[in-house]
């Protein structure tokens, strides 16, 4: 092998196409398709009294108007409960179009199909829906109070209740030398992909075939669920995920109502139908995350070692639970991060509210868990007057304790067992990077200038590469072109580059010859999807295994053709040659020709494969009994469990003593995701994640009023950070390979955003000298906290009191 591509920071091959306007996103497809638009509930909770569509019927260009009553077959049923769980005792899932009740602002009620989106929206504006308003339930506290119910079927508004315990945590807390209690809150936010959801359905009446293009994170999931809903054979449905302008978890939820309704209407109308989500729709009828109320009780010794940890949290799951309780399960387990408490008990209630549903958003419950744990670590350090990093160190799982089994069940129902990691090593690197031990001098210099600064820290472990499996298919054409297919989708992760690096290395071909296809059920029908930082781990290993199969076949064919031993062969730049005598060689393209004996000569390459092309052994069939035609291979990778990446972040913030404006001066990241396929892509993922985390910590939140109206459902008022708000991110890597897969890789997609809220809270607390217990935080909120602190309503940190007394 010449240059090793695995591990090389090569630039992303897809970017020239994407950044020069040549991407093909969902809305770039389907010119001439009819457009769908929806009448959505303006109320958080209401009974539908009457729907009058008569005013819209005569709008020129309207093709069809559908309400729940028009739906047939399984489309008239509720959408599927994707991930059932024994603890999810009162699961509720919406209908594609609400039949009798609406449970959040934005729930679809009427579907209009028209010549274009303008006309469809005109018609929507003329449809009258009479509602009888019912009491809204907004926020965790209202859900807990259960004065009003979201669903009659869910007493106390409880969708799920789960307890996991290792040891007797409550007894351990009670017996510990020191005890603390923390009440914490983290607010709602959501991902904002540049391109919202969207679906284009093309019904081919001649073939009785449905083709769906969806801006989805799972083409196979959409295909299977739409086939089931429409009563079509799976063989008659195909789904393609085109270029996708960001997913962040919102598009792993499926099938969205629109993903079912648009194909249903396309078949019914025998016309192409397209729906593209607009930004307001994304805000009010897509998905949110993050809102939790948390109560932590912790008992610890003089060194800050956690002897018992007892956590209860109340998770706002919105109006329905189509994605089960994945988010709170992840919070409840990943909360533990790199630490090993003596005993651990976690209990959560997943609660209904009359707001947008909650499903995984990049981080998927981890930012909340890390926030609870890291706030606790800081509180312990402050209570004991110890260095915050030292307290963390005292609780670390050590490298020699790996693999480390927490004794809990993870989101995949499998043991929560860390495979590898070097937490003391990561912390040492972080402290060096941020200048932890020189902090007192840094602060003193700033204070001398009248500036107020704080240093924050946060550690996390991220379960990545969750199963059940992904597949890879690698095929060498007679030209030498290498086609790689894997079924999961791509929404910006650089799969055209990273997967090609893997295959080019495994097969010994130039990367320019490698073409990667993702998210197309025509190319790979078996797949799960792109979420949970799993693509590199699961598909990366699958394409590696498939490439190894192709390599084995190529060597077999070449050994036969060159009449040498396979062990004497190598593949360099797409040519199989004898080690030490490179003149004895045969290109992979030629082997592809030989692998597929032909009757018809349609080009020069084909001529070489026809029956009269050359000498043949007439005692054997043209294709050997144990071979298949073609130089190709397919394999699947199915991991036994998740692989656990980890990271540690530190930030220095400055808070304005007068205006309480918050500025991040430095942001440092140590990241360990095992072997790096492409360090540049990993860094990009980390940078983007930190940016998203900064949004969640300081800017973004969903502002619902008491009536359940989302007050900031536009980019004017939802403050996604600009480049001007995202700090320069300083990164360093540690590589502890995963023992769980051939490539030794772990996932990196979500890493950057996970600890940011915890880190920023830690830094602001350090700057201000009083506890931060609610995030995100805005300048006005910090200013209010200062006033409460000055009025004696908020205690000072102990170290702050000691420093100023």
């Amino acid at each position, binding site marked *: 092998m010449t240059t090793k591509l695995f591990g090389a920071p090569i630039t992303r091959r897809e970017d020239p196409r994407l950044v020069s306007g040549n991407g093909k996103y969902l809305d770039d497809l389907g010119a001439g398709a009819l457009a769908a638009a929806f009448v959505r509930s303006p109320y958080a909770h209401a009974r539908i009294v009457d729907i009058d569509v008569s005013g819209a019927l005569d709008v020129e260009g309207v093709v069809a108007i559908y309400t729940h009553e028009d739906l047939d077959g399984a489309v008239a049923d509720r959408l599927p409960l994707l991930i059932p769980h024994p603890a999810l005792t009162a699961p509720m899932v919406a209908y594609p179009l609400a039949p009798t009740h609406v449970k959040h602002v934005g729930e679809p009620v009427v579907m209009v199909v028209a010549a274009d989106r303008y006309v469809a*929206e*005109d018609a929507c504006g003329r449809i009258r829906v009479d509602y009888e308003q019912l009491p809204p339930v907004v926020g965790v506290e209202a859900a807990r109070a259960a004065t009003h119910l979201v669903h009659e079927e869910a007493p106390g508004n409880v969708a799920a209740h789960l307890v996991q315990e290792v040891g007797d945590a409550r007894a351990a807390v009670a017996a510990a030398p020191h005890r603390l209690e923390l009440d914490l809150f983290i607010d709602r936010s959501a991902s904002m992909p540049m391109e919202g959801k969207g679906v284009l359905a093309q019904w081919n009446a001649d073939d009785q075939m449905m083709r769906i293009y969806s801006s989805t994170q799972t083409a196979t999931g959409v295909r299977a669920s739409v086939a089931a809903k429409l009563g079509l054979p799976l063989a008659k449905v195909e789904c393609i995920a085109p270029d996708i302008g960001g997913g962040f978890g919102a598009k792993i939820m499926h099938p969205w109502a629109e993903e079912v309704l648009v194909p249903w209407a396309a078949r019914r109308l025998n016309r192409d139908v397209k729906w593209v989500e607009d930004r307001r729709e994304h805000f009010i009828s897509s998905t949110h995350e993050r809102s939790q109320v948390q109560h932590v009780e912790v008992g610890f010794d003089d060194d800050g070692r956690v002897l018992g940890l007892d956590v209860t949290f109340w998770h706002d799951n919105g109006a329905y639970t189509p994605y089960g309780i994945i988010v709170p399960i992840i919070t409840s387990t990943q909360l533990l991060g790199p630490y090993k408490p003596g005993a651990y008990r976690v209990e959560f209630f997943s609660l209904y509210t009359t707001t947008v549903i909650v499903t995984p958003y990049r981080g998927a419950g981890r930012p909340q868990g890390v926030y609870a744990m890291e706030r606790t670590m800081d509180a312990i350090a402050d209570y004991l007057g110890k260095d915050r990093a030292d307290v963390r160190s005292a609780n670390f799982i050590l490298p020699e304790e790996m693999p480390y089994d927490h004794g809990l069940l993870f989101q995949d129902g499998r043991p929560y067992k860390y495979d590898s990691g070097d937490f003391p090593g990561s912390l040492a690197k972080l402290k060096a990077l941020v200048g932890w031990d020189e902090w007192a001098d840094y602060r003193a210099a700033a204070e001398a200038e009248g500036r107020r600064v704080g240093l924050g820290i946060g550690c996390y472990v991220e379960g990545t590469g969750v199963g059940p499996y992904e597949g890879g298919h690698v095929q060498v054409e007679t030209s030498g072109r290498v086609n790689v297919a894997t079924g999961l989708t791509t929404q910006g992760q650089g799969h055209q580059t990273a997967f090609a690096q893997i295959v080019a290395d495994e097969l010994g071909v130039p990367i320019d010859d490698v073409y990667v296809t993702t998210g197309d059920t025509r190319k790979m029908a078996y797949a799960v999807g792109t979420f949970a930082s799993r693509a590199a781990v699961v598909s990366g290993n699958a394409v590696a295994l498939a490439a190894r199969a192709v390599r084995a076949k190529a060597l077999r064919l070449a050994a036969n053709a060159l009449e040498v031993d396979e062990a004497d062969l190598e593949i360099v730049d797409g040519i199989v040659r004898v080690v030490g005598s490179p003149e004895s060689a045969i290109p992979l393209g030629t082997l592809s020709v030989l692998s597929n004996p032909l009757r018809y000569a349609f080009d020069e390459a084909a001529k070489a494969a026809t029956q009269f092309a050359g000498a043949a052994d007439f005692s054997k069939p043209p294709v050997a009994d144990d071979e298949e035609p073609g130089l190709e291979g397919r394999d699947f990778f199915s991991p036994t469990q998740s692989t656990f990446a980890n990271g540690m972040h530190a930030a220095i913030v400055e808070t304005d003593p007068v*205006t309480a404006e918050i500025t991040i001066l430095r942001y440092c990241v140590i990241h360990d995701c095992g072997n790096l396929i492409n360090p540049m892509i990993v860094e990009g993922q980390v940078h983007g994640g930190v940016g998203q985390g900064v949004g969640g910590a300081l800017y973004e939140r969903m502002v619902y009023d008491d009536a359940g109206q989302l007050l*900031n459902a536009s980019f004017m008022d939802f403050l996604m950070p600009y480049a*001007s708000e995202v700090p320069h991110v300083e990164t360093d890597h540690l590589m502890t390979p995963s023992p769980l897969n051939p490539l030794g890789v772990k996932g990196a997609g979500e890493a950057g955003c996970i600890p940011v809220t915890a880190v920023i809270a830690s830094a602001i607390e350090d700057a201000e000298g009083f506890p931060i217990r609610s995030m995100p935080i805005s300048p*006005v909120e910090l200013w*209010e906290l200062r006033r409460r602190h000055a009025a004696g309503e908020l205690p000072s940190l102990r170290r702050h009191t000691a420093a100023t007394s």
Partner: protein
Amino acid sequence: MKPSPFEYHAPRSIDAAVAVLAEVGHDGKVLAGGQSLIPILNMRLASPAHLVDINRVSGLDTVEVTAEHVRIGALVRHAQLEHHDGAYAAQPLLRQALLNVAHPVIRNRGTTVGSIAHADPSGEMPSVLVLTAGVVEATSVRGTREIPAAEFFLGPLESCLAEDEVATAVRFGRFSPGTGTAFQEIARRHGDYALAGMAAVVTVRDGVITEAGASFVSLTATPDILDLSAALAGATPEDADYAAAAALVRDHVDPDADIHASAEYRRMLAGAIAERLLPVAARRGIRQRSEQEATA
């Protein structure tokens, strides 16, 4: 997020434009840069039956600097005015404020006259127009009239422009020698609508402050001038009691609360900005006078 149907008019002259407006009256809306109007249309918060696009009208895209004022036509983009050195020399407040108008991409398309006609109390340029004692030139089939800035703004998003009128130009006044200006706003994100903003002007003669005033962004229902001379006049820029001026500012402003900040917080910000900004304007006043004298 698609607008309701409307009839699109693209007149080539101002006469043709006002003729359309005279005909359609309340149903007409003027489109220049569209940075506020187009989102409003797309969100169907407004559904005018007629859109009068004045972008093809000639003669509206010039910046003129005279001894008395800086006059800009209705099609002068924020960026064009921001980068106009003559305008900056004549009235530095223009560039100082324009740098706070959203982002460069928006300034490339949005027009200064359009943002004034929009009369948003969160807009920067209405407050600059008022503080410079500017004038709006308005044209209709009934003729042309000049409206002093102090009379132009009636309330949030409400000006005294009639339905059939187009604001064809505005004139920003110039200050006397020895006058320094400064502009600052505090926003949640760079380029956002200000939580609080202020344009300050301080005149210094013989080393002593003679006059001072300010106008505000997102702090008053309509832009108005607060005379700060009582607090600052008679003192040198070094010794002036800026805290007293800041107290006057806090008393004067009347901000609303919204999801981004409480009224109380904005009032505090107004004082904080005043205390930081007024000394800057005063120092610039001294420097401006010495530069004038050097070139005289």
